[in-house]
Structures are given as structure tokens and as C-alpha cells.
């Protein structure tokens, strides 16, 4: 692959951000990637895998901390002139018409008005927006707005068209429709860019569009390996090969240790004292387990996601949390409920809180630590700052806050501790008996 001519290459690129508690947070660790002419590459990863950061480094919007980016073999500094991007939130200027938005990049380059106008009209036709040149973005539906985003990128005739989760802000049907049209354009060979680099967390989308899928792992973001999509276009989503690939990618995505392709997994990470808590709400966890239980205790993840109309970023945190708490096990794209999970899913409210508490204390060491500190302190309280400071040493500010929120949510659900948001203080929950009494009372009522 090193010998194919490359349009865009990242060589051993890393990105770190300083943490406010001192130290650094590594978002991307020694990532190398090449985009060759004529291929569609998808960067697939969960939130926190640094896929958007990698895209922006390749676009020249962010400077890498170490490593270099080259375009046509020349080192890149500053915004990359060979690429155009389609943004998640469209990034249209609401006060410009569709036409003016589409020509924006050309006029900035100094292309004469008539030429820019002609190019923009052509691109707008390509995305099916003829007749809407004079409209303002607010007059358009979400799908049409993103079409303007595509037209604006098309007129640039970029080497690499970058798409940053381009369909994720659209409703399911609109996204499906637009995805299909983009894929058609590419297959017809009239696509206005040489290559496509797509960032997504939608597995089916990646398999539908890409020639190869680069899978990124989290914490820190790194490339775990890549999957070649050797399905002839146009691709049939219900074909056996397609389904098999979807299952395979799901397996890889749900299991951080699984091998991607034949590439061996990265060396096992040392176990951390503070494993990252998946950002799942306790209600979401119990909801998921109840659904799995109702469906017979075992479920195919892609099937579940499509039935529930959920993206993996919405579904996987709850799956991960269930696995972390010992309620479910995940293997080969299937999630299976454990005995504890069954008991949890079927127990009454009070009993389910208790099971949750037991699992939390035995499986998440941090909660046990917090509980011990609370019991040792005479006033039975600790400030939020104390905990966030500890978390800050292991996570970025943002992540530390999320970890804290998750911990609070789980702790509250387990009746382990309470949290006063005004005073930002944790304190021990009132004795369990009271709650049980009240439960019994309300049941009697």
C-alpha cells in the first residue's frame, strides 16, 4: 500500500491536549493512514475514538502534536486546499441563498462570477436542487440542507471529499435516501472527487459506502485495524455477505480485544484502577435488559439496533454497562443476558435497586472507594471537586465530568449515595430500611 500513489497520508500522527489538572490527554496515538485515488475509506469508531480529530488533522484544521500529514507527498501546514468537507450540522450560512452558499468556496478562490455561478448550478442539479437556487436554507428541509452542503463541496472538485457524519443529523428515512443517492453518484463514476473519506459511527453506512473500513479504538484513539469491503456495487443490504460483514464489524466494535481482520489486537492494556464507565443511564441499562429478556435472553446486536432505530453510539453504552455490571455478556455481535441480569430484569423495583447495588460495589471499584470515604468522614459528605480531581488525573475535563455524572446516576439508582447539585456534595443515602418501608407502604396503598 505504501507504493500506491497517495492523495493524503498521515504518518504516525498523535494528538494530545493538556489537562487542566496537569498532564495530558491523548486523543490520538501514533495513527498512520493513507487515502489513495479512487477509494472510499470509512473511519469507524465510537465516540471518544478520535475519528473526528483525525479527519480534522487530515483537513489541516488541527495541527497534530507529533507526526506529519502529507498531500501528494508534500507536508501539510494549515488548511488543506485539496479537500472539501460535508459537515454534520450542514454549516450553511442562513443569510445566503442556496446558490450563494454553494459558490462560497469558488468565489473565495477568485473564480469569476459567471463561472462560479455555472459550476454551482451544475452541482445543485447533481444533488437534485435545481429550482431552489434562490431559496434560503431555512426554507429547506434537513435533507435538502445537507444536499446544499454536498453541492458546496462538489463545486470544489476536491481530491478527497471528507464527510463528517453527514447523515447523522437527519431522520432515518431522509438519511437512507440521501445515503443511497450519494452511493449511486459514486457508482456511476461521475463523482466530483477522486476519493471519499467518511467518518461515521453507523456500521451499515460504512459497509454500504466504503471500500475499506478503518476501525478506531478508544482511550486513547488508535487504529485497531481495517476491514476490506469486497462486495460488488451496488450493494444489497440484505445480501448474506453484507449481513456477515455487519455481524463481524459489530463483534469487533463490541469487543475491544477482538482481532480486526487478521491483524492482531493491540497489546493488552494494563488494567486501570479507574476503568472508563460507559455513559449509560441506569434507566437505559434496565430498559435494555428488559428488552433482551423479553426477546428470549439473547439478541443479535445489529438486529436490535435496527429494530430500535438506534445508532451504535446510542446502544453500545448501555450494552457495555450491562457487561461491566455482569448483567450481560457480549460475543460475536450477540448480547446474552446472564442469570444476574435475568434476576435484575424481572425483579420488583426495590429488589432491582439492591441487585444493582451489589453488582456496582463488586464490579466498579470506584464506587466502593467512594462509599468507604463517605463512611469514614464524620459528616458523611464529600464535595464533587474531590472526586472530579481524582477523575481529572485519568480523563479530560469533559470526560471527567461525564464520568462523574454517570457515577452519580448509578450511585443514586443503587441507593448508595445521594447528591446535592446545589452544594455539589455527595452524601450517604438514607438507611435502606426507610426506603423499603416506604416501598411496602406504597404497595399496601
Amino acid at each position: 500500500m505504501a507504493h500506491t500513489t497517495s492523495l493524503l497520508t498521515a504518518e504516525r500522527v498523535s494528538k494530545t491536549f493538556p489537562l487542566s489538572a496537569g498532564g495530558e490527554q491523548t486523543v490520538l496515538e501514533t495513527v498512520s493512514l493513507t487515502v489513495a485515488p479512487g477509494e472510499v475509506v470509512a473511519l469507524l469508531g465510537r465516540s471518544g475514538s478520535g475519528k473526528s480529530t483525525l479527519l480534522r488533522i487530515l483537513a489541516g484544521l488541527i495541527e497534530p502534536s507529533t507526526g506529519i500529514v502529507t498531500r501528494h507527498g508534500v507536508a501539510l501546514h494549515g488548511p488543506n486546499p485539496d479537500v472539501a468537507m460535508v459537515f454534520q450540522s450542514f454549516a450553511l450560512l442562513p443569510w445566503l441563498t442556496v446558490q450563494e452558499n454553494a459558490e462560497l468556496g469558488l468565489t473565495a478562490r477568485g473564480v469569476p462570477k459567471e463561472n462560479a455561478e455555472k459550476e454551482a448550478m451544475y452541482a445543485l442539479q447533481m444533488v437534485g436542487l435545481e429550482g431552489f437556487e434562490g431559496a434560503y436554507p431555512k426554507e429547506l428541509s434537513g435533507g435538502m440542507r445537507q444536499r446544499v452542503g454536498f453541492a458546496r463541496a462538489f463545486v470544489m472538485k476536491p481530491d478527497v471529499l471528507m464527510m463528517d457524519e453527514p447523515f447523522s443529523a437527519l431522520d432515518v428515512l431522509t438519511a437512507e435516501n440521501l445515503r443511497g443517492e450519494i452511493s449511486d453518484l459514486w457508482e456511476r463514476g461521475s463523482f466530483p472527487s477522486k476519493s471519499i473519506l467518511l467518518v461515521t459511527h453507523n456500521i451499515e453506512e460504512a459497509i454500504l459506502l466504503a471500500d475499506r473500513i478503518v476501525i478506531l479504538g478508544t482511550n486513547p484513539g488508535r487504529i485497531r485495524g481495517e476491514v476490506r469491503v469486497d462486495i460488488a456495487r451496488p450493494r444489497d443490504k440484505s445480501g448474506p455477505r453484507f449481513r456477515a460483514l455487519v455481524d463481524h464489524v459489530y463483534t469487533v466494535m463490541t469487543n475491544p480485544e477482538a482481532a480486526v481482520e487478521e491483524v492482531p489486537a493491540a497489546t493488552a492494556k494494563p488494567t486501570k484502577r479507574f476503568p472508563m464507565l460507559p455513559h449509560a443511564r441506569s434507566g437505559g441499562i434496565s430498559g435494555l435488559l428488559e428488552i433482551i429478556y423479553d426477546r428470549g435472553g439473547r439478541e443479535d446486536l445489529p438486529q436490535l439496533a435496527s429494530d430500535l432505530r438506534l445508532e451504535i453510539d446510542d446502544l453500545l453504552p448501555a450494552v457495555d454497562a450491562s457487561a461491566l455490571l455482569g448483567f450481560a455478556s457480549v460475543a460475536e455481535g450477540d448480547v446474552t443476558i446472564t442469570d444476574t441480569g435475568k434476576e435484575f430484569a424481572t425483579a420488583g423495583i426495590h429488589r432491582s435497586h439492591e441487585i444493582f447495588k451489589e453488582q456496582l460495589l463488586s464490579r466498579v471499584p470506584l464506587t466502593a472507594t467512594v462509599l468507604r470515604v463517605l463512611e469514614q468522614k464524620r459528616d458523611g459528605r464529600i464535595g464533587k471537586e474531590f472526586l472530579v480531581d481524582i477523575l481529572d488525573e485519568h480523563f479530560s475535563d469533559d470526560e471527567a465530568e461525564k464520568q462523574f455524572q454517570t457515577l452519580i446516576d448509578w450511585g443514586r439508582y443503587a441507593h448508595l449515595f445521594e447528591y446535592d447539585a446545589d452544594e455539589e456534595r455527595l452524601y450517604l443515602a438514607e438507611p435502606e430500611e426507610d426506603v423499603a418501608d416506604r416501598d411496602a407502604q406504597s404497595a399496601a396503598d
Partner: protein
Amino acid sequence: MAEAQRGFGILFKRIERIWNGRLATPVRFSRIPQFGIGLRTESESRPSFHSADLAVGLGTLVLLYVAARVGAESLVKFNPPDVIPTISLDPRNLPNYAARSTLRMFIALGFSTLFTFVYGYAAARSRRAERVLVPLLDILQSVPVLGFLSVTVTLFIALFRGSLLGLEAASIFAIFTGQAWNMTFSFYQSLRTVPTELDEMATLYGLSKWERFTRLELPSSVIGLVWNGMMSFGGGWFFLAASESISVLNRQYTLPGLGSYVASAIAARDLHAVGWAIVTMVILVLLIDQLFWKPLVTIADRYKLELSAGEERRFWVVDLWRAASLPAIFERILGPSLFGLDRMLSHFTRVEPHAERRSTSKTADRVFNVIVSITSIGLLVVAIRFVLSGVGLAEVGHAALLGLATAARVLALLVLSTIVWTPIGVAIGFNPRLARLSQPLVQICASFPANFLFPFATLVFIRFGIHLNWGSMLLMALGAQWYLLFNVIGGAQAVPNDLREMATSIGLRGIRKWRFLIGPGIFGSWVTGAITASGGAWNASIVAEIVSWGHTTLRAAGLGAYIADATSTGDWPRIVLGVGLMSVFVVTLNRIVWKPLYRLAQTRFQLS
């Protein structure tokens, strides 16, 4: 008023429609995106009926004529500073005085806008500049503007020796200092909050600096800028009235204008003249609101960042302008050259695609910080030494006590205004019809200069023997209370309807309703209003703690009166001490009262 507007709008719309039916050949012309500041859209730029043209043409001519005449007056009349222009109390002179005052206001607005762009841009673009400019702006905002008059008047008179221009400049500068800071803050905030993806888009698609400014940054900040400009402009009248006639360094300076007319009327104990001035002022505020601000607000409304489709705001002046063909003709003539200019400016500000990013070194940052700290400490030491060598420590204590008195007045008036206006504001806000009718009224009240009403209050104080120690509180409240009312109405309107229905359905009433629904619901708006009102009250104290009617002068014990006295006698150490102390008071109150309350409102009482 509102009915009339709507009537006009509908009338013009109807005529427009009939006319378009006959002459339906839309004319396309190249619109430069950012210059189409939206007075017209392509579909609307077609030949249209003549009455609108007549109105637009005549209006423009009248405006040009007045501006030229009034402008010439202040330039041509060559008055040495010892010859004070006399003010005639004949009401027939009022239009002329009003025009001169208005011109001052607009010149100051122009400078404020220019300053806003330069200062706001510098603060938002450079990390180092930001570290100095933003705190400085915070301080400038807290400094009592009127206390500066003495400094600026002396400075500008020296600059324009032997001409009235010095006084003009000083007055304009006073208005400017009343307008600029708010607008600058708003612009800076807007620049900092441009959505990331739009910013990335501008970078990646290679927009030149000019294009980035005109296509992205200016449009996304224009709503905040216009609203802040409108509020600041209203506040500016107050400074105008105070700065046109002022005694500085034992000398009385007078500039022909509405403010000095009122001052002369007070000196001559002419209540009729004061009445005429107030009538003129009301008309002026209404005219400027209808012909300038409302159209601007209507146009700015198009620059909403969110993409939700909503009903477009309409306004009769804008409709008239759109209906007329004169502006279209001008635009067609000027269009190509403006387009060329746009391209040229864009070309010269192009961002080099391979520009190496400047690395930011930490040591350089540290050196910069040290230099800034040393400079500010040095300046502070110089000021303190100047004051101490001039008046001594005892005087500082005395002035600080006076400051406490004024602070107590400001807080008391806030409490009283809150007690009086919150229930009224909530009642108005919960009634959509009433709110629609009263909001423009309150807005106009807020921009009416309270110092025009001072003579009446003074007369009442004299008649009933009320000491100004108490009376000044009312005078300060005359201007400040409106901000509170205005914001409370807005806050009450923003309380979601289903929350109110919920309160009704569970039978929340009386104190409990206030405690659980209304209080938390309007808290954020109340804080915003109270911050503005408190700032206004501090400034007003300089003119409210010492008032006169003819030869009778009432005086309150307070820092405002202290500054006013020091200014009129030209006692520099006391001026510096007074102004400095007042700034310290305002900044301290901001830090220990308003900022925490504001944060509380943001984190705890945010609806939605």
C-alpha cells in the same frame, strides 16, 4: 401606534401586490451577499409604485438637508471658549436644537460602531490582546462616565483651541463612552460564539479575512449589535443631556442643543420651556425609533443563526423601502462597483493556503503577562500617590463613607423598584396582548433621558421639604427602573405555558406560586435587569445627588455629589479619588453580588 403600523403594512402590501400583478417581470441583478443587508431580496427588486418612491426620496432629501445645515453650524461658528453660545428659550428654536443634539448622538453611534469592530475584533482574534482588552473593557464599563467629563472637556478644548468643535467633541465623546462598551461586549461575545463547524467551514473553503468578516462574523453578530446599539443609544440621551451644559473647572460650558435648553430653562425657572423640551424629546425618541431602530431590528432579524423557519418580522418603513424603486435603481447603479470593491477587498485579505501557523511559546506568554501586570500595578501606584499627596488619607475615608451612602441608595432603589415593578411586570408578561402593547412603550420610557424630568421632581422636593438624601433615590430610579421592568416582562413571557398550566392544575397559588414558579422563572431576567439598572443608577448619582432649580440647590451626601462638586471646581485629586472610588465600588459589587447571582441564574434557574 402598533395598529397604525399594521394598517400601513397591509396597505402597502396590498398596493404592492396589485402593482406586481401588472408588472410581473422580476429583474435579476447580481446581489453581493453581505451588502444585500437585506433591504431587498431578488424577488422584491422590481419597479414599483410612485408614492413609495416619493416618500423615500423626500425623506432622504430632508435628512440630508438637515444633516448638512446642522453640521455646518457647528463647524462654521467660530466661538472662542470664553464666549458661551446663548440658549434662547423660545420653543421655536427647539427643532434646531433637537437636530443638533440628534446629530451628536448619531456621530457618537458611528464612532461607537467603529470602535466596537476594532476593539471587539482584536479581543476575539488575539489571545494576548484578549487578556488585556477584556478586563479593561470590564473596568471601563464600571467607571462612571460622567465623572470623566471634566477630563475630556479640558482635553478636547485644548485640542480644538478657539472653536466650538472642542465642546462638540467632548459631548460626543461623553455619549460615545455611554454607548460603546455594551456594543463592544456584545460583538466580542458573538465572535467568540460563532459555531465551530461554521468556523471550520470558513477556514476549509478558504474564505478571505474580508469574506469571513462580511459573510460569517458580521451577520452572526448583527442581532446582538443592533439590540445593544438600540439600548445604548437610549442611554446616550442621558449623557447628552448631562454633557451639553456642564460647569467644569469653574467655568460654565454650553453647547446649543436640547440638553442645554433644559439646563437654561432650569436656571431661568421656566417650567413651560421644560415642558416643551420634554414634548420635543418624546417626539424625537419616537421618530428615531420608527425611522431608524425598528427598521434595523427588522432587517437584523434575518440574520438568525438557527435555521428554523419563522414568520418574518415586518415593519412599515422597511416595506416602504422595499416597495420603492429608487433604492433599487441606486443599487443597480452602485451594484457593479460595490461588487468590484468586495472582490478587491477579498483579494487583498486572502489567507495564504500554506501559511505556517505561528507556534505559541509559553515563555513569551509569561513575559507578556509579567509586563501587563507590572504596567497595571505601576499605573495604580501613580494614581494612589497622586491622590494621597493631594488630599491625604482622611479624605479617602470620608469619600469612602460617601460611597457607602450612594451604594446604600443604589441597593435600596433596586429593592424598591423590584417590589413595585416585579408584580406589574409579571402581570404584563403573562398577558400576551398587554405585553405586545406595553413592551415598546417601556422601551421608549427606558430611552427617555430621566434628567429631563428632574426639574419636576426637584420642585416637588422643594415644595414638600423632602431632603435630597431620600429624594435622590427617586431621581436615580427614574431612569434605572425601566430596565428592571423591561427584563421582568421578558422573563415572564419566557415562562413556558405548560408550566403555568401545571401550576394552575395542581392549585399553586399566592406565595407558593411565586416561590416555585414565577420567582425561579424570571430570576435570570431579573438579574440581567438589575445589573443594568444598578450600572445606570451609579452613573445617575453624579447628576441626581445634586440638583438645582433657579438659585436653589439641593444636595445629598454621597459619592455622586462629591464627584460633581470636584468636577465643577476642578479639584483634580478629588476627581481622581471620586471616580476611582466609584469604579472600585461598582467593580466590587459586580464581583460579590452580581456575578454570583448571574452564575446562579445560569446554572440553576435556566428554563429549557
